[in-house]
């Protein structure tokens, strides 16, 4: 794991949580969308908060795909769940939502989980082997099976 790779993981957590917060803020401005008027969701794209949220979620997706290209799924998911903690902090200090004792306990558990997995290897041997292998035969065999 290089410093750049940790930066990508931080990007996954940061872009995801800030993007969600912007979307949430934008959708609250727009108000409830009834099931009978689902097309109203298209108008939401004119809201600058929603646009910002979408841009950040695209960045999140790019960072997530990059991380999955060199790390296991079971590493990336817990390691980037620190984003849930960021989301709670944004909710409390910027959106001024109530953060209850139960939620702080949740934050504590997530932080413990992140610490647990971040100390281990990012890529396990079998997945690493697949990464190096020539993929053509594998793809062919998958097509043959299905």
């Amino acid at each position: 794991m290089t410093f750049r790779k940790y930066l990508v993981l931080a990007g996954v957590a940061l872009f995801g949580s800030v993007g969600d917060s912007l979307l949430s803020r934008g959708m609250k401005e727009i108000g409830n969308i009834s099931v009978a008027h689902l097309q109203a969701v298209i108008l939401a794209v004119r809201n600058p908060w929603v646009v910002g949220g979408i841009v950040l979620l695209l960045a999140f997706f790019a960072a997530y795909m990059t991380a999955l290209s060199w790390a296991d799924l079971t590493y990336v998911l817990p390691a980037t769940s620190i984003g849930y903690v960021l989301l709670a902090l944004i909710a409390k200090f910027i959106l001024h939502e109530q953060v209850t004792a139960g939620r702080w306990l949740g934050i504590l558990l997530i932080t413990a989980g992140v610490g647990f997995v971040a100390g281990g290897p990012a890529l396990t041997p079998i997945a690493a082997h697949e990464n190096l292998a020539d993929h053509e035969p594998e793809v062919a065999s998958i097509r043959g099976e299905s």
Partner: protein
Amino acid sequence: MKHAYTWGAIAVIVTASVTGDVLLSRAMKQVGDVGELWRHRGMLTVIGRILRHPYFVLGMAAMAVAFFSLLFGLSWGDVSLVAPASASLTFVGNAAAANLLRHERVDQRRWIAAALVACGVALLAA
């Protein structure tokens, strides 16, 4: 009846997002280290390789199913049930699926991490 619909939606969300994550992870492992590819072949090659990968397309389709099931689930049940239940079950489901299908070595450390995060997410969204 509404209760059954809500849990049905949660089951679909969890199944679809676990399927999507496993497929996307598999696609990206086969595409290779994006940072390296970018440096040697350029951005367009990387994006083209990802978008043309069949597992990537299937993974995106599964993610779309998960997203719309979430919208349906939210219209039937409370957000405080649907969001934490689906997020925490997805964490545990992903650990199991990665172990069985992706052959990632999900050791004790990762199981504990998945369980801690799942409990944390459930508490956070409660």
